[in-house]
């Protein structure tokens, strides 16, 4: 019982989340209106046919009835066309907004969240995609399914209340069957979804493990195993489908049955051979109208059934996306006084969620204002984690970090007063000046130029006709690795920040380039507190102190 209640509450949470993310500015409603209009056009189509047939019998002119038939047909086409286009635009807008939320969550993820950036990419790009069909098709179809059959039924009732009653009567057992079988069918269909996902998962798993499979010379055996599993899942899926198709079978059955019953009733009524009294006598026009319109009664429900898997895909995605959003935790910027800050690390441990060992364990050291301190140790010893810690990008599991004596809270960040230079420099597809100026939007052109000069970019800029106004692409094509990093350095210099965080700023440089870079860094370090992670002895040599970190096991 508890499990059931839990299921219900997660289902409700999921629905609420979906509703909230797909609030699409009324496009679904517009799309629904067009689907309803399609049902109205279907009434015109049936009226055209009925009028034409009875006019033919009566020897009256036909052409306007034929024209009504053709035009109604075209109008139906235009309605579904419009509904599809508007639905697609609504989905596009909803995806855009949802993606922005997921991107914002990804950019502000809590320090230490276990999710890899691969998973975040998957969420922001592919899983957001799963709500497309939900907004574009399922929502309009669901709203239309509630109203359109009633519109059709009203039109039929106007021509023949008994035929309308017959149709309505088939709807009652249909809904009864759906309620009875619906839970089972939905459950089966979820299981089908899960079985197919499992199969894809198994295949993806063996591809992922390919190096091991190859090294153990096991491709043939694993392929065979994959085959057995796939055949097994295929068999199981078929058992599931046998039940799942029953619900669409029921829909189909009542749809066909309603047409047959209406046809037979109308025929007998016209012949005057009904074995029971009815309060109406039909003429050919109304009988034919009813017959031609009868299939439209179930059409909206069939459209809804066809969009059902869109709903399931969206629900699966909603669970994962809401989890990503829940993990977001905007960092808190702590206030740091003017002037180079003092830092103190006391017994600091960093441990990421789901990791089986700490990334940093029991690290203690102090940095005096204006001091340059190098963090030294093999990869995996937690140098970068210590730097990221100060920006609220790594979780403090134990110990205390103080900035100017003030405690840094969990997720707290000194970003407002810090500059960063890493191995890779972030470049936006803008000019070099813009890329440097990102550090300080209020900076004058002269100060950007000064920062560029100080970072050693003068020769590179002089060699380019547009100098600082040279446009870059996002990859920084046409720049060497050193030039890219110097742009990053210029950015770090431009920002009037008294704390400089350097993450292996000279990695992959040759000796000469490294020498130049180190000189520039030494210049930039004046008046700043510098904490840097490095493997380079030459760079570490400019540090006042070297803190050795051990690789942890």
């Amino acid at each position: 019982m508890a499990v059931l209640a839990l299921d219900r509450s997660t289902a409700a949470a999921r629905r609420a989340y979906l509703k909230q993310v797909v609030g699409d500015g009324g496009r679904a409603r517009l799309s629904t209106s067009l689907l309803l209009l399609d049902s109205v056009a279907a009434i015109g189509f049936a009226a055209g046919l009925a009028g034409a047939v009875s006019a033919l019998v009566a020897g009256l002119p036909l052409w306007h009835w034929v024209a009504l038939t053709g035009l109604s047909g075209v109008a139906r086409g235009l309605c579904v066309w419009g509904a599809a286009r508007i639905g697609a635009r609504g989905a596009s807008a909803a995806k855009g907004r949802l993606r922005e939320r997921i991107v914002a969550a990804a950019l502000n993820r809590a320090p230490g969240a276990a999710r890899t950036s691969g998973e975040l990419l998957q969420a922001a790009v592919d899983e957001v995609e799963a709500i497309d069909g939900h907004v574009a098709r399922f929502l309009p179809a669901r709203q239309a399914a509630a109203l359109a059959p009633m519109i059709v039924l009203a039109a039929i009732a106007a021509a023949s209340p008994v035929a309308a009653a017959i149709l309505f009567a088939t709807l009652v057992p249909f809904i009864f069957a759906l309620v009875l079988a619906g839970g089972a069918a939905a459950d089966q269909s979820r299981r089908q979804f899960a079985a197919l996902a499992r199969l894809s998962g198994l295949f993806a798993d063996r591809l992922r493990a390919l190096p091991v499979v190859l090294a153990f010379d096991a491709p043939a055996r694993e392929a065979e195993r994959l085959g057995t599993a796939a055949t097994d899942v295929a068999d199981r899926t078929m058992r599931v489908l046998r039940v799942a198709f029953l619900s669409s079978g029921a829909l189909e059955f009542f749809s066909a049955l309603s047409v047959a019953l209406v046809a037979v009733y109308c025929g007998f009524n016209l012949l005057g051979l009904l074995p029971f009294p009815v309060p109406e006598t039909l003429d050919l026009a109304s009988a034919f109208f009813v017959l031609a319109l009868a299939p439209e009664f179930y059409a909206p429900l069939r459209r809804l059934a066809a969009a059902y898997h869109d709903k399931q895909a969206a629900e699966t995605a909603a669970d994962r996306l809401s989890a990503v959003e829940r993990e977001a935790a905007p960092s808190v910027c702590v206030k740091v006084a003017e002037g180079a800050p003092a830092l103190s690390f006391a017994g600091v441990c960093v441990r990421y969620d789901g990791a089986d060992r700490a990334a940093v364990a029991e690290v203690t050291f102090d940095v005096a204002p204006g001091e340059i301190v190098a963090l030294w140790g093999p990869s995996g010893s937690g140098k970068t984690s210590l730097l990221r810690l100060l920006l609220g990008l790594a979780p403090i599991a134990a110990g205390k970090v103080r900035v100017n004596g003030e405690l840094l809270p969990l997720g707290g960040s000194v970003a407002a007063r810090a500059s960063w230079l890493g191995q890779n420099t972030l470049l936006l597809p803008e000019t070099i000046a813009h890329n440097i100026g990102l550090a300080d939007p209020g900076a004058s052109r002269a100060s950007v130029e000064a920062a560029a000069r100080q970072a050693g970019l003068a020769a590179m800029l002089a060699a380019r006709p547009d100098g600082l106004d040279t446009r870059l692409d996002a990859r920084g094509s046409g720049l060497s690795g050193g030039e890219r990093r110097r742009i990053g350095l210029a950015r770090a210099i431009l920002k009037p920040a008294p704390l400089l965080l350097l993450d292996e700023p000279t990695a992959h440089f040759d000796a000469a380039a490294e020498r130049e870079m180190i000189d520039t860094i030494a210049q930039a370090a004046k008046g700043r507190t510098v904490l840097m992670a490095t493997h380079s002895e030459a760079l570490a040599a400019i540090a006042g102190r070297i803190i050795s970190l051990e690789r942890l096991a």
Partner: protein
Amino acid sequence: MTNLAVLIARETARERRTLVRAAILASLVTAASVALLGLSGWFITAAALAGAAGAAAAMAFNYMLPSATIRLLAIVRTGARYGEALASHAAALGAVARVRPAIFRGVAALPIRQALAVTSGDVTARVVNDLTAIEHDLVRRSAGPAALSAMLSGGALAGIGGLLPAVIIAATAAGVLMLARLIVRPLAAHASAAQAHNGALKQRMSLLLESAPELRCFGLEQSAAAEIRREADALNAAQLACADVHARITLLHVAAIGGSAAAVFALTAPAGAPIAAMAVLAAAMTIDGLAPLIRRIAGRAEVACAHARLGDLLGEADTAAPMRFAAPTVAFEPDAAIAHGGRMAITGASGSGKTTLIESLLSLRSVKPRTAWLDGVDIAYVAPKTLRAAFAWLPQDAALISGTVRDNLLMADPAASDDALWAVLADAAMDARVLAMPDGLDTWVGENGERLSGGERRRIALARAYLRPAPWLLLDEPTESLDAETEAQVVRRLEERLRRTGQGLLLASHRSLPQGLCSQRRSVELA
């Protein structure tokens, strides 16, 4: 025909009986649909005429046969549609269940660089999607026969009213299909643009996520989000273009139903009201019956892309049996071979290339000549299978496959007995842990061993290496993420095991305890 086309053709041929059944049932569905509406139209109109002619005419009207047929058709249509859905899914699932392992074999046989490119999550996801697209196309195989049957039955019913209406139905149907082909033509370009934008978006976003510290220091989260939005907008635009093509096809199809009905009615009017009524509804249902085929046509661009991409993944398997050395030497310098049974530690700072060297020995990356020698032969010229038969490997990431403990161990030796499995688990100091697990050897380890701790994962991967009957053990960080006590136990049992089996040992480790097993050292320097 491409290899993939041959493969799919072969696997679908094995499902021929099911496919034929699906095709027959699908044809029955559309024929019954056309007949149900056509006959109903005729029945009502004829009944109205008879009813109007007086009670005698009404009594003389044979209503039993048509009304019974109408009910029969309704039941046939329902049953046939259910049977068709089952049959076509059974055929598609069955065929793709056999295509999947074939694709896996093909990927495994690719040159190593291409093969390993497929193991990245993104590419794997695309392969899975491509297979799904092919499966969906197989499900829709009966769409062609269904459309043909609709055209034939519609033509036959309208043909009662004259040849011309039958021709009109056939011509409208053919016209709709041809126009649909024309309309979907831009779809391939839009779909591949969407695919390209999808890749670009992921790349841009991954770059920005990696720059988290810079974003934070310089307050660039907003501009990063704007950057991503620009890429995402391009992706959305391409997808919208695809959706618009699909909308146009729907417009064509639905409008054609009304158009053909109007035209056929106008043409069959001279044959009298009952016949015209039958023909007009038959015409509408005929065009309606083209729906599955039109969906298949619209999906073709995607299926063709899936075919092209999967086709590139089929390498030619090397069927030659590997050469097996009983006791080969290993050398990292041409004249300094280590005799079989020797023990060497591969040392060097992180990032200096220890793992690269190990993966080269297994031919898991393209090997530069003069990297290493196996029994005096440069490994760049040794067949991958021969190299892999010489080394039993513990990968640095201790990768496991999703399955049971037993599944993982049996990779190393499919014929191993349970006793042999327990013996290697004991050597890896893992036997007690597995014994304590709820299902013992049959405990499910989860995807990449996610249900195990890092240390458990590593010891199972170590046991797997022990089980492999190869002359050399190649262990990359065997005691990483183990506590001191377990590490000591693992090293002690490894020592005993080496003495017992006489296997050679190549070991990369940061830790001093396992390094103590080795008598020689090979230092790797940054390339």
